[in-house]
């Protein structure tokens, strides 16, 4: 089991709850959302009370977004400077200085892994991808000069569209697999800012292939950030861990979340994460499922289900957003339990789960249960096609 809590704004006791429940085994801190002194105190608390992996995403990439929603980054983190452009990455000395500052910040705090600084790459051959490669290369060089440093994960933040071209991906993988580094921290910037489990099938297949080649074939540690339910197929393909958070913006990476915008919006509606449906659905939808007599088939079979089952109906239960978050991690942890075998076995098992979920959705819809566009199970068709394509291209 290797699910990390993707830290962000408003952590309260969410992280410790997930660790207490043993549904998460580590935390990836976000620099943007924590002052350094508070971060240091929190690290000490977690170290004293939990056996867990502590990682830190320096969020260096935010520095190239304009206007950036960078919160504590400018004042608290010395490696950060707002408004960097491509010109700021010309010259090995500049790059080395960014790298050294970012890595030194982490070595001083004893994180279990060090993450390299990176920038968002829209493809595998554009200007920014070359800058990302330079930052990675320089990080590997600097890290190798340190004594007793914890292992380095090279960070990659890739636009979803970068996964369109298989030949570009192959060439990129040839470079990544030539580096002598412990592993990779991979984040995919999603095109659609709406929370859903959908993922274009070819892009999913290529992402799975990337993780498989790095993790399984080449024995790198691969941690997938902001992955949420997609983390399950990624784990099946060999990822060591995946991360997800409590807000939708911490479950999937959207560039929008790092750009300044007007405050506002509506409070999130309550959700229920169902392992049989491989999805997070609305509590109201669970109510309809219950009304149709299919509640038992949809429940995740985790501890916090008792709050639903002890009540007369889902909507009359004491379900809260905090409980929903904890339950979400419990559900993902349960799904993750089955993914400790060889990749082929994991993938075949997951395909069986996807088919079962598709059948269950069909049954529920036939019984008159209404679903919203992003919870209606369409993602399962993407997943199935993506998994099958992955099997073919990986020759599993």
């Amino acid at each position, binding site marked *: 089991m290797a699910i990390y809590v993707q830290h962000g704004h408003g952590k309260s006791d969410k992280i410790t709850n997930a660790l207490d429940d043993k549904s998460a085994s580590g935390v990836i801190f976000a620099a943007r959302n924590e002052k350094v002194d508070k971060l240091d105190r929190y690290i000490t608390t977690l170290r004293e009370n939990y056996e867990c992996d502590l990682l830190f995403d320096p969020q260096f990439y935010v520095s190239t977004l304009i206007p950036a929603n960078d919160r504590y980054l400018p004042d608290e983190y010395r490696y950060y400077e707002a408004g960097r452009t491509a010109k700021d990455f010309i010259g090995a000395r500049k790059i080395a200085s960014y790298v050294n500052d970012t890595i030194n910040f982490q070595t001083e705090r004893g994180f279990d892994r060090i993450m390299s600084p990176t920038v968002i790459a829209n493809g595998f051959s554009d200007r920014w991808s070359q800058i990302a490669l330079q930052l990675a290369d320089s990080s590997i060089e600097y890290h190798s000069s340190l004594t007793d440093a914890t292992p380095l994960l090279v960070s990659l933040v890739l636009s979803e569209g970068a996964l369109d071209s298989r030949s570009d991906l*192959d*060439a990129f*993988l*040839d*470079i*990544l*697999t*030539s580096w*002598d580094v412990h592993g990779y921290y991979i984040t995919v910037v999603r095109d659609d800012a709406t929370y859903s489990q959908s993922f274009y099938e070819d892009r999913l297949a290529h992402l799975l292939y990337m993780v498989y*080649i790095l993790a399984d*074939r*080449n*024995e790198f540690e691969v941690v997938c950030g902001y992955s949420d339910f997609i983390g399950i197929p990624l784990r099946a393909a060999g990822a060591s861990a995946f991360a997800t958070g409590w807000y939708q913006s911490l479950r999937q990476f959207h560039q929008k979340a790092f750009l300044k915008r007007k405050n506002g919006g509506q409070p999130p509606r309550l959700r229920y994460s169902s392992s049989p449906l491989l999805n997070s659905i609305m509590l109201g939808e669970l109510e309809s499922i219950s009304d149709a007599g299919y509640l038992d088939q949809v429940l995740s079979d985790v501890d916090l289900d008792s709050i639903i089952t002890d009540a007369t109906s889902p909507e009359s239960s004491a379900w809260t957003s905090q409980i929903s978050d904890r339950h979400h991690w419990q559900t993902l942890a349960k799904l993750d339990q089955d993914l400790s075998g060889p990749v082929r076995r994991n993938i075949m098992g997951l395909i069986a789960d996807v088919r079962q979920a598709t059948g269950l959705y069909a049954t529920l819809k036939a019984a008159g249960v209404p679903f919203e566009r992003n919870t209606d199970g369409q993602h399962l068709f993407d997943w199935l096609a993506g998994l099958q394509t992955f099997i073919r291209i990986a*020759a599993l």
Partner: protein
Amino acid sequence: MIARHELYCITYPAIIQGHPFCIDFLDKEAMANLPNLTVEQIEHVLGNVSGVRYIARGGQKVVWSGVIDGTTYAIKFASTPEEFTREEDDDTEVEADPEVIVRASREVETMRDCASPYMVKLGPIGLNFVEIEGQSLLYFTEEFINGSDLRSLLESDGPLAPDAIIDMGIQMTDAIKALWELGKIHRDIKPGNIMRRTSGDFVLLDAGLAFDVIGESLSGGFLVGTRIYFSPEQFDYSNRRTGLDFRSDIFALGVTMYEMATGRHPFWNRGHSSQAFYSNVTSLAPEPPSSIVEGFPQDLDNIIIRMLGKSPHLRYRKCDHLTRALEAIRGH
């Protein structure tokens, strides 16, 4: 007369067997201009050598053997261009060395620096230049190996047993690793460049094409090596300076292991056109050795097929990973 396969032989067996894709890559001019020497001339030049015997002629060099201080060494001679004269003490700017000299320098340097016991070693005489009866020559000595090259072994005895292939794989991987630690790629790994000593150990020969990934290109952009052992990325011109690494050698070693296992090349058959060969090496999934050789171990099958991956990222990212995989199945 000593049987050919018992001799140290610097051969280009592909030519001997009529492989059509190799002739393009050998220096035809150099072949036509191989040194023409007698035993007496060699003994006179080297001074302290005795028992000089002719061994073989290669693409650029003629190989002799001789005894120096009680040990037998191979002695290699090559012609240098007539207009070339080396002025050791000349502090004026000199033109770039001709390719034959650059290659010989690389070969000598690689043999001297490579730490692997499975890479042929430089002898007591490093790179030297001499003029004999109007012939401008270079020469150097290297370890004389008692044994046979794998091409000859394959012809005389047929495929190797799986355990011998595993040993060969482990030892050649050690040599590839040691070369890579020097920042070099061998670029010409093939059965004709691997000797099996009478002790049973294997040794990699002919680092003349060894490519220094951070130095100047030897080839000036032309494909060098023996094409039927090229990895797919070696055909990609744009990839050559930035993308090649030891994993190309792993591919060539995979082809060699496949041939030694089955007696067949995984991507080439006599009569194949150049285009058909290119298509095969870049896209054909080779038939597993176990489907050709009855009882061939599945584990070794998997390793060889992985070494033949079309992209470097499909092979092994560290020589140690390949060694570990081979050691894990040794003796099974």
